[in-house]
């Protein structure tokens, strides 16, 4: 019975002609007029007219609802912290080196960008290959062994961390050494004289 009542509302919303009695019945029945409201709201959302149909105190009513919710105490998170700290260290070391693993995907996208600007025949002959990223690290075994052998995993990780550290150290020293280099061209001799006279 109630199923068919809702159906009547639905038909009305969709502009199907109904008898006046049915209309009155909906107006009188609180549940049905709520349904009428809701159906129209759904229709508005689908048509993208939401902002106009949302009540002004929308946020307020939600915050009230939240306030009346019973408070649930959050479970302690400490237990998982040892695992996390190991993970955190690696991420930290990784980032400066430059999130190497993800680079390949963006390279693909960027190549597209370049291709558009460039004489097509130039690049069509050399289709993008995958950029080589981190290549056979001697110290790192496949992930399967990481899951099964606890002690191994530790040494693997420390080898890996040490390796990342070494690479990062070399990279930053290389960049520093480039900066600690004097490049002087003939045109700026004048500047030198000027500056030393200060």
């Amino acid at each position, binding site marked *: 019975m109630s199923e068919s009542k809702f159906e009547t509302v639905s038909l009305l919303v969709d502009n199907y002609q109904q008898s006046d009695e049915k209309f009155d019945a909906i107006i009188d029945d609180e549940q049905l007029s709520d349904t009428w409201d809701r159906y129209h709201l759904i229709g508005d959302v689908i048509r993208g007219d939401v902002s106009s149909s949302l009540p002004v105190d929308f946020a307020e009513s939600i915050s009230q609802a939240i306030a009346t919710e019973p408070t649930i105490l959050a479970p302690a998170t400490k237990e998982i912290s040892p695992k996390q700290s190991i993970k955190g260290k690696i991420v930290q070391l990784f980032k400066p080196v430059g999130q190497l693993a993800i680079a390949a995907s963006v390279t693909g996208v960027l190549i597209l960008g370049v291709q558009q600007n460039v*004489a097509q025949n130039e690049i069509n002959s050399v289709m993008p290959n995958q*950029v080589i990223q981190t290549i056979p690290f001697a110290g790192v075994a496949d992930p399967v062994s990481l899951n099964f052998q606890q002690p191994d995993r530790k040494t693997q990780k420390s080898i890996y961390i040490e390796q990342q550290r070494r690479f990062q150290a070399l990279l930053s020293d290389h960049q520093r050494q480039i900066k600690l280099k004097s490049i002087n061209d003939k045109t700026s001799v004048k500047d030198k004289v000027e500056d030393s006279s200060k």
Partner: protein
Amino acid sequence: MKISMIRVYYGLLLTLGVLIMPSSLANDINNPPVKTTESIPAKNWLEHLTTSLKTLNFSTSFVVVKNNQAEPYRWYHGVNSKGIELEILALLNGPRRDTLRRGNIVSYFESNSQPYSVNSSQISGPIPSVFSFDIGILENSYDFVSVGKSRILGRPAQIIRIVSKDANRYGYWLWLDQESGLLLKTALITREGNLLEQIQFTYLDIAPTLATSLKHLAEAELPKVVNLSTQTEKTQFSWQVNWLPLGFERVKADRHRINLTQQSVEFMQFSDGLVDVSVYVSPSKSSKRGVEFVKDGATVVLNQVVNSKEISVVGKIPANTAKAIADSVSFRGIR
């Protein structure tokens, strides 16, 4: 009846348009680059760039894109009334990394070290310093090719390729403003056509007068100039690098400690004008370790231990080239 006539007429027009369009597009793609720009050789464009970089007052912003990350920079350059070049290059995200230049003094302000100055007329940053130096020094190892035109940063741009003469290096693509000759975009691309790094300018303003911050720089007190050892030519090690790609020359050699690990190394740096390659040699605890390398954008860091000597090669070169350089290191007394 009339309407259908008109329809047919338009239909015909459309069809004609479709037929003509692709062929003209194809022509555009295949021919004009060489044809339309042959009048101005690529080298002239690069010289124009160098002159503009040295003489114009410009304020720019650019973004370095590599490793799925974008690093935004601001870059000001100008020449004051005394003819001294002033320059500011600042990284805008994360810890501060500012570089100032006044004439022949370049000062680096970095969060992880004391500020220092170097006697140099070039800032070392994401943009190869050779562009504002002397492009001619690249002619031994690279060819300059004018590729075509494009639109970058809302401006008509000229595309120039800097192509390595051998297969051991990457190439640069430059998009230059047709009006001012300044950079609008650069890309570092492998010989296979893979993009490794790119710099996209997001703002360019060329003004007749100095930017305010540059005026301040003219009076600012800069950190003490670091005395760079001049004994590069004299430093002798028990090892030597026997192979490098064409055009690379030794620019530096010294012994120093690497900041992060406090490891002391023997160090040589080579340059072909565009690319810097560092070679590190140090004793190692392990007697042998296979080759390992990582890539940061275009920069490869390669490391191996042979006969208890750790050899590392760092630079914007393909991994194969780095490996060949590392393998070519020979030790006196051993070999």
